[in-house]
């Protein structure tokens, strides 16, 4: 199952050369050169990405870089398609224009089996946890190991217990997902995400709807996992404080554009009104409190249709 070596960049490149026409090679070569010049140290780079859902542009020609070994956060109000970005990086959605490179591979030009091999090296933490509801905590964490490796059951047990210990839930191994609290199921999902020792973890809104204690536990976990395991982390969140604490670099996105980027300190000092409103949580500002509507007085006084 685990043909991870095939994922080696040079091999992939070789195959491209063998399979494609000369014109194609040229294009590929250029892309790679651009890539290697600009982003030697970037694990993920997003280039000129455009993506729309219906007539609404979720992303409008944006470029982002995510450095190896760092925690990069993408922040923005709800509904700006932050989750969509993670799905694009994971290859579940296809961009309209632009490209995404993960570890040098263009995610959306990979063949299906190569994409699956790449995904084995990515961990993703869903907002809901996305635990498989018909299995115990133990089986959930063991799931990727059982699917992708042929390890003996005793070895799987050891690995699972290690991962559960890391998130502090070794004692909860026999519980079913519906017996877990929200914070606990997110921690189980985290244990599952690191089961295959990935190179990168994508966190989708890890702090939403958590009480202060489990929030603190998650912040601590994400930070320590990143340093201990040498992971690269991408966090998508709108929880300003928690994210500012652990992130090394922050992108603030609104209406498909990057409106601010930098280290947490730089973002705090940003002179953009919009970023300031977002960081301080003011009710009114560049983002209006009211949904677009006609003038209040006119609306009240007009006869109005019955709905």
């Amino acid at each position, binding site marked *: 199952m685990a043909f991870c070596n095939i994922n080696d960049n040079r091999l992939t490149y070789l195959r491209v050369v063998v399979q494609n026409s000369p014109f194609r090679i040229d294009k590929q070569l250029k892309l790679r050169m651009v890539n290697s010049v600009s982003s030697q140290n970037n694990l993920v780079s997003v280039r000129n990405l455009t993506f729309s859902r219906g007539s609404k542009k979720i992303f409008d020609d944006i470029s982002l870089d995510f450095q190896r070994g760092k925690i990069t956060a993408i922040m923005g109000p709800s509904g700006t398609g932050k989750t969509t970005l993670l799905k694009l990086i994971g290859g579940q959605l296809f961009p309209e224009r632009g490209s995404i490179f993960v570890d040098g591979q263009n995610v959306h030009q990979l063949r299906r089996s190569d994409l699956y091999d790449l995904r084995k090296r990515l961990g993703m933490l869903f907002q809901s946890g996305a635990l498989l509801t*018909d*299995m*115990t905590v133990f*089986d959930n964490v063991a799931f990727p190991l059982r699917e992708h490796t042929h390890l003996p059951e005793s070895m799987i047990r050891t690995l699972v217990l290690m991962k559960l210990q890391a998130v502090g839930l070794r004692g909860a191994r026999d519980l079913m997902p519906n017996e877990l609290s929200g914070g606990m199921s997110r921690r189980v999902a985290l244990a599952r995400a690191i089961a295959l020792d990935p190179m990168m973890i994508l966190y989708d809104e890890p702090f939403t709807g958590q009480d202060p204690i489990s929030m603190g536990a998650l912040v601590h976990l994400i930070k320590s996992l990143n340093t201990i395991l040498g992971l690269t982390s991408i966090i998508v969140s709108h929880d300003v404080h928690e994210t500012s604490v652990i992130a090394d670099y922050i992108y603030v996105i609104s209406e498909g554009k990057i409106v601010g980027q930098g280290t947490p300190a730089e973002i705090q000092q940003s002179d953009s009104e919009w970023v300031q409103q977002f960081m301080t949580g003011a009710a009114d500002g560049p983002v209006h409190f009211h949904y677009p509507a006609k003038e209040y007085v006119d609306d009240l006084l007009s006869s109005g249709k019955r709905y």
Partner: protein
Amino acid sequence: MQHTTTQDTLVGLFVASGIAGLFFLALHVSNLSSFSDQDSYVITARFENSGGLKVKSPVSAAGVKIGKVTSISFDTKTYESVVQMNIDAKYNTLPDDTTASIFTAGLLGEQYVNLEPGGSEEYLKPNGKIEITQSAIILEKAIGQFLFKSAEEKK
């Protein structure tokens, strides 16, 4: 995942009972058990009129089903109906002067071939022919005759 053994047992029971049901249908309900084509021999009989006889109609002797009709064709020279029958191989002692008649089971029932054994010492051989036959009773004909007769008697 926990109750694997009970689950296995139940699945096993389910599959077994399903197969048992299908076997019951095959062996008990259908004609599969009562007759098979392998060990049987063919005889033919010529009827003036084979009436409503059909392929697969039963062939019986003394009320016991011993075979079935396999084909019915029309002989263009003699203008007779040629009925081919498969007789179960264990009933291989039919005399060669057996009479074949076409009867109807009940008033509206299906038609079948009845074999009436004669007194000969010789047995019918595979691919043998039955010489003495009696045609199907055609209801319209019989009624017509009956009406004709009763009209005659009245005179």
